[in-house]
């Protein structure tokens, strides 16, 4: 399975990658984008099975990425990994079609809880 990690921070993309491995997802093919615009193109060109996206990014934020994908009929499973996790943001994410929102800082366990329904 292929997972697209979207975050403007290379440090955070590295930590997400490491945490996925620690959560037991060692066979995933991981690809990366540094903002929503880049991610939008990669969803179309590389057809990932899951998008893990930051919310607050330059160029195009994660919420606009999700809205753009759904607006164009892309049903790729989508989850947020973000430093903000208010009730309002969770509700907004869910109503736009996100499967989950994992708050930073996260643990391998919180990744497993969020990803098991999607990746098994």
């Amino acid at each position: 399975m292929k997972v697209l990690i979207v975050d403007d921070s290379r440090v955070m993309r590295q930590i997400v990658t490491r945490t996925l491995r620690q959560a037991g997802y060692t066979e995933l093919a991981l690809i990366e984008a540094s903002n929503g615009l880049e991610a939008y193109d990669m969803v179309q060109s590389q057809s990932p099975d899951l998008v893990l996206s930051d919310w607050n990014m330059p160029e195009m934020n994660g919420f606009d990425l999700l809205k753009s994908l759904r607006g164009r009929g892309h049903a790729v499973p989508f989850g947020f990994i973000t430093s903000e996790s208010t009730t309002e943001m969770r509700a907004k994410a869910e109503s736009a079609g996100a499967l989950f929102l994992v708050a930073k800082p996260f643990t391998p366990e919180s990744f497993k809880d969020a990803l098991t329904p999607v990746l098994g």
Partner: protein
Amino acid sequence: MMTLALAPAELKSMVDEIWSSLFQPVPTDADDADMGSDLVVGFVDISGGWLGRVAVETTDAGAVAIASSMLAAEPHTLGDEDLADAIGELANIVGGSVKSCVEGQSSLSLPSVERQNVLRHGTSELMTVTTHWLDHPLRVRVQQIRVVEELTANGAHHLDAAS
């Protein structure tokens, strides 16, 4: 005016939890931090009903050690961009948690990184959490900002630190 529902002890717990998830060994508490002259500061601003700045401060050597740990990379391979990325992301994570304690709607800026103090001296400093990690100082500061009405012809607002 909206408020920040966060007590100093709660900020301490919040920062401890974040540091525990990101750093090995876990940073230790410190009474004070000597930042010397090579300060590196990552910060984010919270705007909305409550205005404030959340800053994460360390030294240049501290930033190298932190970036090396977070990127799992040798220190000599790291550039300024990597240090800014690491310290900025720390500010983003702490700032996001602080924002969740602001009552009502607010927004979080993208992180910025500077090599100078970004908080105003001599003004009220809401809260500080000071730790050491691998002998490097690592400090979080949360400062409220108030809007000062300036008597200008165009009625523009001027942002100033709370006093």
